[in-house]
């Protein structure tokens, strides 16, 4: 039985997955062509690259290769989504454990100067399998609750690996070990800066947004000013607040007692707050504008006062849009708070700038990795919350 060449994928068992071809290529390049770990005699000299077989004892090296090859094969061929997810997760876990072993294997006994760090091959493999997992997750289209559970499980696994001490011989953790106190102090500052400015922006931005929808005269100028604030580069805004804050600290009685000063966290908090206002105010305006006119009329017909209508009808309906504004602000502030270190405001940026100054990339990573983890976590949590708030059942229960 002859049949023409069809462009559709044949139903055979070994059909290739388009994304899988890309992933398999990345995995092959990461495992075969690029170094897995870098060994350096001390923290700032150039490193010697080591491939997988050179960075691990043979039994572990071959196990890792087998796991990577199997997961790569699952990616390459069209397979059920759940299998792809499982294979990607197993490969990620194997990579994370193996890189810790590489630290132990390559560091000479008792040597505290040597540094072992993950190299380009490791990062490429991590990226490839993270892509595979992300793709499987987006195809599964999990419910918000399941996504939150997945995030919590991931956090628990990472915490377990960290606490078990299996990464202790890696360069980033070596940098951490010598400044553990500073790390947690800056972490607290970072969180206070990002969440504190968000709380201030929400408490003031939502009322400003409500006022803008009630008065057309207010709306144009307020949004224009906030738009212009966004165009001022962050490092300039941080710097410009030093003088007025110092002046307030010097002249207003009691101001310096509550922590207001020209240098430090106070100007950073104000700068982050200034950047946060636009998304909160404009999303409040957009959300309230989007409430159907009939709904407002119906509420008025029921004899609700202005205040009741706002609290029981308009704000609950606008809530998902306002929450989206809050998500934008939180993710943006977690990233921007790194700049606060430039004006002595603290936060993870301290390690990034110290690292740039000493050309010590492990130190840069010590600041950058927690920032990214925090931002990604915040984005996942708030995306889930936004989606939950949009579901009609929840909305009715809340209203």
């Amino acid at each position: 039985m002859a049949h023409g060449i069809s462009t559709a994928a044949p139903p055979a068992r070994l059909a290739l997955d388009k994304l899988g071809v890309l992933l398999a290529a990345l995995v092959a390049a990461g495992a075969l062509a690029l170094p897995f770990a870098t060994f350096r005699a001390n923290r700032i000299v150039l490193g010697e690259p080591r491939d997988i077989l050179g960075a691990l004892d043979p039994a572990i090296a071959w196990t890792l290769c087998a796991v990577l090859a199997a997961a790569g094969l699952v990616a390459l061929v069209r397979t059920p989504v759940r299998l792809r997810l499982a294979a990607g997760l197993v490969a990620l876990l194997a990579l994370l454990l193996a890189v810790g072993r590489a630290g132990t294997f390559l560091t000479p006994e008792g040597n505290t100067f040597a540094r072992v760090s993950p190299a380009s091959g490791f990062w490429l493999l991590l990226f490839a399998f993270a892509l595979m997992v992300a793709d499987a997750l987006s195809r599964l289209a999990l419910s918000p609750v399941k996504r939150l559970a997945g995030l919590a499980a991931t956090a628990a696994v990472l915490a377990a690996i960290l606490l078990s001490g299996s990464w202790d011989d890696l360069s980033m953790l070596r940098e951490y070990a010598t400044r553990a106190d500073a790390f947690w102090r800056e972490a607290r500052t970072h969180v206070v800066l990002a969440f504190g400015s968000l709380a201030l922006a929400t408490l003031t931005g939502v009322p400003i947004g409500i006022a803008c929808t009630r008065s057309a005269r207010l709306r144009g100028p307020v949004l224009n000013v906030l738009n212009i604030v966004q165009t001022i580069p962050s490092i300039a805004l941080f710097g410009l607040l030093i003088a007025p804050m110092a002046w307030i600290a010097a002249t207003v009685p009691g101001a310096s007692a509550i922590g207001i000063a020209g240098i430090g966290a106070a100007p950073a908090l104000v700068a982050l707050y200034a950047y946060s206002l636009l998304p909160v105010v404009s999303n409040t305006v957009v959300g309230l504008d989007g409430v159907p006119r009939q709904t407002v009329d119906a509420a008025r017909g029921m004899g609700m006062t202005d205040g009741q209508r706002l609290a029981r009808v308009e704000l609950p309906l606008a809530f998902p849009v306002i929450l989206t504004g809050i998500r934008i602000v939180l993710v943006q502030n977690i990233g921007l708070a790194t700049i606060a270190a430039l004006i002595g405001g603290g936060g993870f940026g301290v390690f990034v700038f110290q690292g740039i100054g000493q050309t010590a990339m492990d130190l840069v990573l010590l600041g950058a990795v927690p920032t990214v983890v925090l931002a990604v976590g915040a984005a996942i949590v708030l995306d889930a919350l936004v989606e939950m708030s949009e579901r009609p059942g929840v909305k009715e229960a809340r209203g």
Partner: protein
Amino acid sequence: MSAGTVLRAATLVVLLAFLLAPEAFGPLFAPLTERGAPPIYVQADMLTLAVNHLALVFAAVFAATIVAVGLAIVVTRPFGTEFLPLSRSIANIGQTFPPIAVLALAVPALGFGAAPTFVALFLYGLLPIFENALTGLTNLQPTVRDAADGMGMTERQRLLRVELPLALPVILAGIRLSTVIALATATIGSTVAASTLGEVIIAGLLTDNIAFILQGGLVVGALAVLIYDAFLWTERRLARRMGRT
């Protein structure tokens, strides 16, 4: 002439005057300095810094536009639909990386200077353009597509003559967002020794000179506002022209 137009023209004139002859503005900034510090940054030519700044921003946004629009076209064709959900989540996650971290991590591979800054601006520019190009290409009315097919257009003709022109105003809005973000982010490039207007601000932070911080910030802010308005004006003209034909 509306008040807005007058204000914009005045901003442009003052900006150009400052870039061409910054020393003339010395008396204006002098009250902000202490202990006889210089009121105007003269270690590098202000105009050169501004030109470098703009060149870096436009190069990065141009590259980001080509890649983002190209990707959006691929994932909206039948061949690439499998990549659509994944490309969305990558672009989303990419935006959560703080620019300073991207800069610092690009330094070992690319050295200090403009190259790591270009990479950071490029990565940051991708998401807004990609999102908007996707919206523009997927929100077309099916009737328009059918009409193009009915006229016997090939896939390629339909893309070039119908879909892209209709999506253009939305894509331009994405480019506008990316440009404004990049203008501000480029200043951070000076922490890794890129020659941009950030140099002025950082010199001010290091020497405790508010005049430097203010002039650097104001020049970048004015550039951003003017470029934003120029984009908006072009978008409106395009939208109007398309409404007419």
